[in-house]
């Protein structure tokens, strides 16, 4: 499965995503410069974490106008798999590829720590290989991950199974204390209606090896492989 990691000016999670795919998942991967106008040849695009355009104005607000984003949009609309992580999620939201908005953490501070994610929908390309009931231990590192949708949109997201991950405590309970940033409904990750575009604030690429504290992030990619193999049959 061939991955492309998009590099925006200021991106820094691109290095981690690249390393994770290449060395941990042992899959082919390229960096894609933000000025590229084509993303042809890739099976999955990663929009990485970390401060595109310095997070100025609003996180993701400026990056979404990069030339590459038109190609990303077309790719997504044609059903291509796209994963936005952290800043990548913010870019997808700003670009309108995912619903809602992400703004300042309710505690007004940047937060870096492990979180526990409850999977809400196992029938997506990002979750099919995850054992039911299994919590994923994956870290966050963001200052603006407070996910907002209005009540109507929330109901629609629920109805359509677009909520993918929610912040839980270590026992799997969805609690206010487990919510690191104030996100509505403890939402940590959502996908589009078509289920081919995922945005999540936690960083699966940082949870790829036990020596880093967890390798649960691999399960999301195992799902992608399973889905992709299936779709090729």
């Amino acid at each position, binding site marked *: 499965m061939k991955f492309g990691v998009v590099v925006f*000016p*200021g991106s820094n*999670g691109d*290095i981690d995503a690249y390393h994770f795919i290449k060395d941990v998942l042992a899959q082919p991967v390229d960096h894609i410069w933000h000025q590229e106008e084509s993303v042809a040849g890739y099976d999955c695009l990663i929009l990485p974490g970390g*401060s595109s355009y*310095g997070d100025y104005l609003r996180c993701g607000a400026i990056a979404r106008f990069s030339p590459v984003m038109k190609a990303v949009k077309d790719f997504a609309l044609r059903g291509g798999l796209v994963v936005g992580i952290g800043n990548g999620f913010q870019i997808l939201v700003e670009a309108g590829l995912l619903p809602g908005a992400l703004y300042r953490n309710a505690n007004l501070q*940047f937060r*870096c720590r492990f979180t526990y994610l409850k999977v809400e929908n196992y029938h997506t390309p990002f979750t099919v290989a995850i054992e039911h009931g299994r919590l994923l231990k994956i870290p966050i590192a963001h200052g603006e991950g407070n996910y907002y949708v209005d009540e109507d949109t929330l109901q629609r997201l629920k109805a359509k199974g677009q909520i993918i991950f929610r912040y839980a405590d270590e026992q799997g309970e969805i609690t206010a204390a487990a919510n690191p940033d104030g996100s509505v409904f403890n939402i940590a990750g959502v996908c589009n209606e078509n289920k081919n575009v995922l945005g999540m604030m936690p960083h699966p690429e940082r949870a790829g*090896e036990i*020596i880093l504290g967890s390798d649960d992030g691999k399960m999301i990619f195992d799902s992608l492989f399973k889905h992709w193999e299936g779709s090729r049959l």
Partner: protein
Amino acid sequence: MRPEDWRSLGLKDEEYQMITEILGREPNYVELSMYSVMWSEHCSYKNSKEVLRTFPTKGDRVLQGPGENAGIIDIGDGLAVCFKIESHNHPSAIEPYQGAATGVGGIIRDIFTMGARPIASLNSLRLGTLDDPQVRYIFKGVVSGIAGYGNAIGVPTVGGEVYFDSSYQGNPLVNAMCVGLLEVEKIKLGRATGKGNLVILAGARTGRDGIHGVTFASEELSEAAEEKSPEVQAGDPFTEKLLLEACLELINNDDIVGIQDLGGAGLTCATSEMASRGGTGMEIELDLVPCREEGMAAYEIMISESQERMLLVVTPEKEKKVHDTFKRWGLISTTIGHVTDDGILRIRQGGKVVAEVPARSLAEDAPVYCPAYQEPTYLKTSAALDLQTLPDVQDANQVLLKLVSSPNIASKEWIWQQYDYMARTSTVVAPGADAAVLRIRGTKKAIALSTDCNSRYVFLDPYNGGKIAVAEAARNVVCSGGETLAITNCLNFGSPEKPEIFWQFRETVRGMSEACSAFNTPVTGGNVSFYNETDGEAIYPTPVVGMVGLLEDVERHCTSAFKAAGDVVVLLGDTFDELGGSEYLALIHDKVQGQPPAIDLEKEKALHKTVLAAIKQGLINSAHDLSEGGLAVALAECCFTNEIGAEIFLSKQGLRLDSLLFGETQSRVLVSVAADKLNLLLELAAQNLVPAYEIGQTGGAKLQITVDGSLQINLPVLELKKAWREAIPCALK
């Protein structure tokens, strides 16, 4: 020129005389400004140079010692680690967020200037006490500034330290350390060589930042200066990230001859230092410098401290490629001059030469002073501590709870959870441990990093305190499984013009040097910050040590947390009646007095050897050094992470109870070991002549400490942990 002119720029009469001798004429205002910044203490180290020379700086692994932008040590496999610490104290006092942020940005530039990719940051903070709202404001601002810059640029902040003491009430310390990784062959130096090579300025535009600062309160200018209030530097991590990538790309492709960042003293410093190191001169055309504001005077452009700028020397053939690279990264770069062979720094503006001085005279020929020194009188009274008059502990539980809630000992999670310490996915041991451990991708190796300094000890005994600062940093690295390699340091003191302060300075350096020699950890660079005073009252002398260690095998790293119930707890090292300068004495008895604990460097080395061998051989499950709060606090800290208690049995053996539980005797480490490996550990300790005491067992939900048959401490781990974790957040509410 009138005396007011140079005096208001901070130059002494004899210094002005020296300048006229160097030039063979009177300097003009631009030249005078350039000398004033380059000959300031900050740039020239004129008061500290002689003393700093006594640091050991050589070693098998040292690839670059003091003198360049940062030190470099060899870690094998063709790789090297580049590191340095620097202060940003005064800017952080005025504007905590931007002051701290630009401190981080500045030290990151020092690292990539050398061709290294920054891989980790640490910070060492000293603040007044948290009951003061101004201190809380500064603390919050400084932490978010460090986070704001470091997180955005993607360099993980993996460790540091913070102490709160009223000695820092009006003069906080913000020291930032950065560590980079590079291939040995790719080391770049800040040298301008090759007549006819071009000088390129890249990055941010030049503004009036940092001009109307302390050195620039000239009398005639003061009216104008009042209208333009003093300019604070603001950081732009986005531009720095682009600059970092562009410069590393150029260095990797071997496209440049020399490179240096612009920091203090801005363009004056970068041009004169590069030319001086290269034995060359430079001609610079100020009309070509991209400015942020219109009508900037020559002296303003020459001494502006605008951030996120780099100066490069390139051959004419590479000029276009270099500009193209910066352009691709969205940055401005401009050829502003060329290298000459006459040793003169010649500055032009509007078609006229506005300054013409020997480059070397700016960078190297500042006067060197040997300030007077004298043993401080306070030492006569502070040393006297009569333990007889001090009541021993009545309720050890209460004391322990109080100690773990002291902001100096309490969990620093409030700080580091705001730092992206996981970026670059190499952080194997995160903040909260004795030292941070980072794996080196592509190898089995890892590096261990720690910053340390107990300034109370240094205040009470600069010589021993200096030794202890190095020893503690080393001990922290060792407890993580790292072999100590080298240090950088930031010497924060009061005014060197006061004999008592300069005595502190000399004694501290003497102690540090001895320790560095003993541990074979040379000093590869550092920074001196003098004049840390408010209303004539100096801070505690604070020599922050940044230690770098190496682990050959990342899998063999160690942390302080108890790992399993049923392990044997062993205390390595002897305990004495040493309460002087302790946190216990300050917190419970409100005294900063006495002799700090003694330190025997040979014993310390034997301890390091033992702990390292035990970790390498896989004998022990945890290791934690004893520092503030002594044995009881160290035990509690070992319990927290995995919420595993311990049952401990001690014997006073003639000691006071408070010394036994809370004294801060040096050269002690607490380890836990599986029962079947206990004998091996004890043998190892015996071989190295390190005293080892089996003091109890891990397990249960409580920390219980029995002393000579009487249960002195009996507290649920969760209760202790809660007090420890919530202390700083509560103090900030």
